[in-house]
């Protein structure tokens, strides 16, 4: 029993990070139909900038803020210089652009920072709490609460503010949104900024547990993408659920079956779900117009 609880704790922690990446995917996808494979790099920037700013003597909270600002700026620049000029290109062309951006950002990070693994002290100490015989790191709690807070804030933003509603409108129908006077170009830029900030916050929160290095982004983007698809592409709630499921599956199969094949089991389940529900768990069937 304590074993199961332990796997659930670690699964939810990892899952919360995947959920944040998946939410980032979903936001950008909804606003612009772009699958942004550079999403994992925002998470990497969050952790790396915080570490190097902290190493330079900046207090951690300020360093974290700097990291989030840097990632947001990178998100905006990515949109302005790489996505915007290719407007109207096919989906797969845009995907290759974001993959190029991801390789580029990784390359820059390897030069500006370094190629080692880094971590900084957990925010509330590293003494685990004992719950039902399992150990729960305070930092895990912070990751879970932080992820939850982001999702709630995002929901509030999208339902209660005019800008948020403009984002929802742009996702629903870009042409119609433009007709009612929404600056859809700015909204797409906003979606990149918000996604980048969310990714960076995930990176800031997870680094004390999982460490970070210049190339953590690839795997995160892959898992986050899978999670978003599992939940149903374009559905933020689906992205959160998908992220948590992928995290739990991974940790449970690592614990009970084989740590070498933990990702295999996660992907087998994803394949199984997609065969049964081709639009993901919460996705809606698309209608093709001929």
């Amino acid at each position, binding site marked *: 029993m304590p074993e199961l609880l332990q796997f659930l704790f670690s699964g939810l922690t990892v899952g919360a990070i995947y959920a944040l990446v998946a939410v980032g995917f979903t936001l950008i996808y909804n606003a612009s139909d772009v699958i942004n494979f550079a999403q994992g790099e925002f998470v990497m920037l969050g952790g790396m900038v915080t570490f190097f700013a902290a190493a330079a003597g900046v207090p951690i909270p300020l360093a974290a803020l700097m990291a989030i600002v840097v990632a947001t700026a990178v998100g905006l620049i990515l949109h302005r210089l790489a996505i915007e000029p290719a407007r109207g*290109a096919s989906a797969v062309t845009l995907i*290759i652009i974001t993959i190029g951006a991801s390789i580029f950002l990784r390359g820059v990070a390897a030069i500006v920072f370094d190629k080692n693994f880094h971590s900084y002290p957990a925010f509330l100490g590293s003494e685990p709490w004992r719950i039902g015989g399992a150990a729960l790191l305070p930092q895990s709690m912070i990751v879970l609460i932080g992820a939850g807070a982001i999702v709630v804030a995002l929901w509030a933003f999208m339902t209660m503010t005019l800008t948020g509603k403009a984002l929802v409108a742009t996702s629903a129908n870009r042409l119609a949104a433009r007709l009612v006077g929404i600056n859809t170009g700015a909204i797409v830029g906003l979606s990149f900024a918000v996604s980048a900030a969310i990714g960076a916050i995930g990176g800031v929160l997870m680094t004390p547990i999982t460490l970070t290095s210049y190339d953590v982004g690839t795997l995160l983007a892959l898992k986050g993408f899978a999670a978003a698809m599992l939940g149903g592409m374009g559905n933020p709630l689906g992205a959160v659920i998908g992220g948590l499921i992928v995290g739990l599956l991974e940790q449970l199969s690592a614990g009970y079956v084989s740590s070498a094949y933990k990702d295999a089991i996660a992907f087998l389940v994803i394949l199984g779900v997609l065969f049964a529900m081709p639009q993901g768990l919460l996705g809606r069937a698309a209608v093709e117009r001929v």
Partner: protein
Amino acid sequence: MQSALRHPYTVVIALALIVAVLPFALPSTFHLRIAALIFIFSIAVVGLNLLMGFAGQVSLGHAGFFGIGAYAVAVGPTHFGIPSLAAFFVGIAIAGLLAYLVGRPILKLKGHYLAVATLGLGILIAMVFTNEARFTGGPDGMPVPRLELFGWRARTPIAWYWISGVTLVIAALIAVNLIESPTGRAFRAIHDSETAARTLGIDVPRYKLAAFVLSAIYAAVAGAYLALFDALVTPVTAGFLRSIEFVTMAVIGGLGSIFGGIVGAAVLVLLPQVLTSFHDYEHVMLGLLMMAFMIFLPQGIVPSLARLLQRRRT
């Protein structure tokens, strides 16, 4: 002249000429090696292009099939005593069979869902190669015995230049033949609209499956060649990044253009060679160039340039 250029087989003839003449222009075995690498990757990309560019189905997992071909010529001779040539065909058969079996359920998915399913498939295959260390040597990989044909050992770059070059010409010929046949037209109809294709009486699942199996076979052939050529195979061969590389080659060169796929493969094989002089900045440059190619030539190099030429002429 104009119509000769447009003729579908022009690509194959041009390719055959390039393959035949190039060895006399290349100054060293190092260059022959690079050319052979380009040919090998081109074989996989020509196959992937049939699936993505013509039938319009994405795959982020083709490195898996590439890996099956590669590991077949490594594991077969080493652990089961099968001659390399037989292992080569066994690998192709396994890749084709696997594609046939998983293709039907997977190809029901569309767009990004198909992308994630093929991605999962590729990762599953790569994971088997990483973890079944008893057979595959695990993450470090394993040596591949040299190909021996009737007492002759294929090990020099020039030998592999000819083997891969001739295979590429044949592969392109088969692809062009297929594209110009009713099957090719069915592929393109599915690409444009599945619903419309179905109303025309095209058996959509069957043609999608055919494209998938064929592209898997192309990938397996290329994978086996690369393993025999390098005399070494590691799980990186079958990894996610390799799948991405294939897709990037196909897209940068131009989806739906056989010659485009080959140009794309050439660009992505040559770039790292040229960029090594930038040392640490290699990846930065690679990423920048990938973005620049796609921003300025969104249709891919070959179709975009062809369009530019045409505009100038009219």
